[in-house]
């Protein structure tokens, strides 16, 4: 794809996704929060748990949504109650930031390695050295090669 066209596609994608993300932040749904919050006793997301504490957390989330809290506010309240591990996604600061940075860095490094390899392959094999540059064959070996070739003629 032409670089200019790729930039336009990326910009369009960002423009399309940004309003959805903003809407999710302002008006979070019960189901999205249940899929992003971990039950501290059973270590699965709330949508996969029906334990007593998971049920209480679901009620808490429902009450906060009704009260008009944003997604960040609800997440902050849950972290204050249960600690950072209550969020299924790692934090974007401190040591947990590595969980976001390392995969991206790995992907970029892999892409760079592939790019360099592709560039080198595209240059093809190095040109053959001229005959004059090659060392002369041993006379005895040359004689045997000639004999072998003569048998096939």
């Amino acid at each position: 794809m032409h670089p200019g066209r790729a930039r336009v596609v990326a910009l369009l994608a960002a423009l399309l996704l940004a309003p959805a993300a903003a809407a999710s932040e302002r008006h979070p749904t019960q189901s999205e929060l249940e899929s992003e919050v971990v039950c501290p006793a059973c270590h699965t997301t709330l949508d996969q748990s029906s334990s007593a504490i998971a049920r209480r957390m679901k009620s808490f989330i429902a009450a906060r949504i009704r009260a008009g809290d944003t997604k960040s506010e609800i997440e902050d309240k849950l972290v204050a109650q249960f600690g950072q591990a209550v969020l299924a996604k790692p934090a974007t600061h401190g040591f947990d930031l590595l969980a976001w940075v390392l995969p991206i860095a790995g992907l970029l490094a892999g892409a760079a390695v592939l790019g360099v390899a592709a560039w080198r392959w595209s240059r093809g094999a190095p040109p053959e050295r001229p005959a004059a540059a090659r060392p002369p064959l041993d006379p005895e070996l040359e004689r045997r090669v000639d004999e072998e070739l003569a048998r096939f003629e």
Partner: protein
Amino acid sequence: MRIARIGAQALSVALVAGLLALLVWKVAHQVGDSTVASDLRDGKQPAAPAFTLPRLDTGARLESSSLKGKVQVLNFWASWCVPCRDEANLLQSASSAWRSRGVVVLGVDHQDLSSDARAFMRHYGLKYAVVRDTGDKLYARYGATGVPETFCVNRDGKVVAHVPGAVTRDTLDSCIQGALES
């Protein structure tokens, strides 16, 4: 070309060194295999882990050092836990009955909503101090695996007994007596 190759090699070495440093950091900072519960099972009397945690009722921070010289009954609980309801009255009674002998009951609320925990305290008339173990750090150091669980600490700050599950009058008295006599 040679510079690029050296640069790539240096980057690879730096990446491996970085990952190794991360591994070392993780190993050095993770909670070890040994916990209070496992030490007790091995016949040891481990030192009670130090802590500074917020009190559920007042929000003030409670330091374990303020309990030095007292026999402590540490009870891990949560408001959603059914057996915790069964033992709540026993713990409150023990707190009143043993206070004159220097015994302190301390509740450690864990994996719970603070509003639910406060309602639980009001409902069962709990008067003893309760702290919040947000993030389960103290719970992990004690090696508890559920709620409720109770540990008794003697006057020297050594954990001498562990009651997994709800306490009964007998198991609670035995836990406290053991801490008083050790």
